[in-house]
């Protein structure tokens, strides 16, 4: 266990020295900050419903940026080290594969989530300074949704990073996964539904399996409980599950998928040749 934290710590130190982290922190953290600052300050004036449009834009941005950022920065962590023989050297010291893999993952999770967390904190501080009621429930749930979405993509990225030998292929794979998931969010699904190409049940299942769509529906129900702004699939889900279960599902499902992929990656890491 002590090596797990050592590996996590060193991974964080390494990330802090790299440029991608600062681009990520500025782009994403800045956006999040703006989101909460404008969201929170406006809410004092007009209440939540009037804000849907503004918030929607931010959520859409998060949906696109967060997964791809996590994927591209993480997918190289093991595959890149393997390719450059860094893995060979580091693992020639008595560190167990368990400590190494999970330590790397813990480190990445902290790196990826810290800017988001600080942005949230900034928003909260700003809201408190401005006075007025803080939408604590919304902030809490939105953070949870962000944690679980970060987690699922971290899991997928580690899995890819482990099973693939070259970091270029890992990167390509990450793009394919991202594009596929994005293509199957509500808009595309709605198109299929309208054309009657697929059975409605299939479409709903596809939506519920797609972590990006799940995040999207979860996040939007926070601000627009009637889901008037997004497609029929989301509406159908809200109708059948009810808002509480929909939220539970949106938080829990991505975590489960993330854990599953992380474990698949870990198994491959232990079973296959390391180099």
């Amino acid at each position, binding site marked *: 266990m*002590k*090596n797990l934290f*050592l590996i996590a710590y*060193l991974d964080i*130190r*390494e990330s802090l*020295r*790299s440029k991608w982290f600062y681009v990520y922190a500025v782009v994403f953290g800045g956006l999040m900050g703006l989101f909460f600052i404008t969201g929170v300050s406006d809410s004092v004036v007009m209440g939540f419903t009037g804000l849907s449009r503004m918030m929607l834009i931010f959520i859409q941005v998060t949906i696109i940026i967060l997964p791809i950022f996590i994927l591209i920065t993480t997918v190289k962590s093991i595959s890149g080290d393997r390719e*450059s*023989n*860094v893995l*060979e*050297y*580091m*693992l*020639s*010291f*008595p*560190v*167990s*594969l368990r400590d190494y893999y999970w330590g790397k993952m813990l480190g990445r999770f902290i790196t990826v989530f810290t800017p988001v967390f600080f942005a949230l904190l900034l928003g909260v501080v700003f809201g408190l300074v401005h006075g007025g009621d803080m939408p604590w429930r919304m902030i809490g749930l939105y953070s949870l949704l962000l944690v679980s979405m970060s987690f699922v993509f971290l899991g997928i990225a580690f899995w890819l990073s482990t099973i693939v030998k070259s970091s270029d292929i890992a990167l390509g794979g990450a793009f394919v996964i991202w594009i596929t998931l994005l293509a199957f969010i509500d808009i595309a699904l709605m198109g299929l539904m309208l054309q009657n190409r697929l059975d409605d049940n299939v479409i709903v299942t596809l939506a519920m399996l797609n972590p990006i769509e799940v995040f999207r529906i979860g996040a939007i129900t926070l601000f627009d409980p009637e889901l008037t702004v997004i497609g029929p699939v989301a509406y159908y889900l809200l109708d059948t599950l009810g808002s509480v279960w929909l939220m539970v599902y949106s938080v829990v499902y991505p975590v489960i998928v993330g854990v599953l992929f992380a474990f698949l990656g870990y198994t491959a890491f232990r079973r*296959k*040749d*390391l*180099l």
Partner: protein
Amino acid sequence: MALVQIENATKSFMGTRVLDEVSITMDAGDRIAMMGPNGAGKTTLVRAMLGFYRIESGSIRVGGFDPMKQRVKVLENVSFIPQTPPPVRLSLDELLRFVERSSGTEREAIIAEAARMDLDVQGHLRKPFFKLSGGMKQKLLIAIALSKKSDLLVFDEPTANLDPKGREQFYQLLTEIDSQTATLFITHRLDEIEALVNREITMDLGKVVNDARL
């Protein structure tokens, strides 16, 4: 019990046998020079000994342990210098911390060992390892490997980037290694270490073609 016991180890990459029924026994105090043309399988053998590659058949034991199933036990007693210094992005300070914490090697010992090869570690602690010059990297890796308490030292061509003086200093340090420690040198320049070894193993096409005690 032999320190390293390799029996009929076989490993293929993409259908080609890179290790072909290799059997070698190494004992405490063995000073082995391992030679052979490029692609003979030397690095692959070493990697299998360190638990990086799963062999298809045969068995490998290092210190009595299976390198795949008991990696940590094996690696606690092995010091390793890879063929090319890896572009580790950690600073020297962080790298030393990693070595200290994971293997219990003392930082002071590493710094002292490095100083004997004219490498000033203290002055570069905040520098990322990959920004050191090729020779400096190699010296640091050597200093780490020699400071770590091990029963087996594995050096995969450690002198490639060293200047003549660095090489001299390195060979001097090698003469001071505990006589019970086994060393496995992979090298293409036997003449340089001839005085330091007591056994020569030659590999070609994945097989041991010569194994002679001097």
